[in-house]
């Protein structure tokens, strides 16, 4: 099993979510995040004083997938989250040792 983590632009969530739904992914965890990459931050001005805001609001999306689906899920997320402009985010994959569904105690692929 793999954990696919994506950091995306917040307004892209709906598109990504429905694309994953269509693909057959039926669960995910979304959390608010902030960060920066090549995009860097932006400047704000309050009464003439400039502030650099380094960290830009993002969403972090986490999806557990069975090994064979990994590449497709990454593709689906990448395509649906893309605007082509700087700051679109990143997707990465990490191996997962074990998964348990809390309600039933099911493990492995059955718990997805």
């Amino acid at each position, binding site marked *: 099993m793999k954990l696919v983590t994506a950091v995306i632009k917040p307004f892209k969530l709906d598109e990504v979510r429905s694309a994953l739904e269509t693909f057959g992914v039926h669960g995910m965890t979304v959390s608010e995040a902030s960060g920066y990459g090549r995009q860097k931050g932006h400047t*704000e*001005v*309050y*009464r*003439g*004083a*400039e*502030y650099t805001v380094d960290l830009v609001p993002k969403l972090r999306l986490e999806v557990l997938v069975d090994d064979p689906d990994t590449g497709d899920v990454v593709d689906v997320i990448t395509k649906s989250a893309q605007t082509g402009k700087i700051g679109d985010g990143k997707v990465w994959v990490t191996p997962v040792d074990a998964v348990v569904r809390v309600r039933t105690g099911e493990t492995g692929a059955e718990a997805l």
Partner: protein
Amino acid sequence: MPEISAGDTAWVLASSALVLLMTPGLAFFYGGMVRSKNVLNMLMMSFICLAIVPVLWVLYGYSLSFDTDAASGLIGGLGRAGLESIGLDSVSGTIPEFAFVAFQLMFAIITVALISGAIADRARFGAWALFVVLWVSIVYFPVAHWVFSFDDGDGGWIGDRLGALDFAGGTAVHINAGAAALALVLVIGKRTGWRKEQMRPHNLPFVVLGAGLLWFGWFGFNSGSAVAANGLAAGAFINTAVATAAAVLAWLAVEVVRDKHATTLGGASGAVAGLVAITPACAAVSPLGAIAVGLFAGAACALAIGLKYRLGYDDSLDVVGVHLVGGIVGTLLIGFFATAAFTGGSEGLFYGGGLEQLGKQAIAAGAVMGYSFVVTYILGTIVHRLIGFRATPDDEATGLDQIEHAETAYELGTATGAPSARLRATQADTEPVPAEEGVNA
């Protein structure tokens, strides 16, 4: 016996309530500008003024400000202490004296509350409360007498004897609070991390809400100062509206040229700057003059708020840049724009009145500024030595809401807020429980 006018009385009572609303408005104006960990403390610094000042006003404040002069126009006597000598049939002008007492009370409340913005994020709450008591007693009450107490030439030295024009408090309220703010900032020092850490306003909608409430209430402040429902009240009303509008435009124009953007905070600040400047002048200038006052004030204040970075004092929410500078602009511009059509006599330089009025305005502004600065510096130092005005750097880092008030304003995220917070004790728990019947027995 003078006749009571029902119309005048109704307007002054309504105006009193309008001016009262300015203090909660100010609380939101200031509260939105601080960081989220200090917003409750900022609100409470204003709110405690609404609690302290009325009590002092009844006990001795009104008397020191408005009783028969006791010392060459410097202070009133104690003949009205406790308001014991005032009855329901006592008359002040054309209104019941109690209406005048109520109206002037609201000015005392907001004046001291204005100072709080300068020392945001770092003042101990108890020390601030003690300072409020001392400051209104020793600074505001006498200065209000100087400026607002009229008794056919035997009243306060600035308004009644010198003949300086200050209709609603450019000197007594704004220069007074602004100079006090500067003194207090110098006593208690900069916020820890000033100019290094991010100290952005946490809620600009609050700031705009507060500015709107201030603008609304200010009609009572200025127009109500006619102490009558008459033409002068109406003239002051339209001047208040248009000067504020012009100041917003001027402030935003400065920002567009300097920073490339017209900001929300700039719009709200410009409104307050215009309101401050037209306060002394609203019954001395024509509506066109009011536009000029507003434009000057908006531009001057927008530029003046940068001074603190040059001079290195941390006037956190720009009380000096807006209230001291705006108050001076408005008070001095009377010397240029005063028109007999409004004043009924005195004329400014641009209306052929020469330099006489300008001289009087400068003396009034300088005297209030000097007195307020010096006495506030002394009072602030006394409070600081006595009980400590300044929060520790650790407490500043934690935030004054938690340290001073044991509360937090917002539930930010699900992990830190109420759902997982456990109730440790309620009032009911403090009832002694007999050991054998106790829940743990």
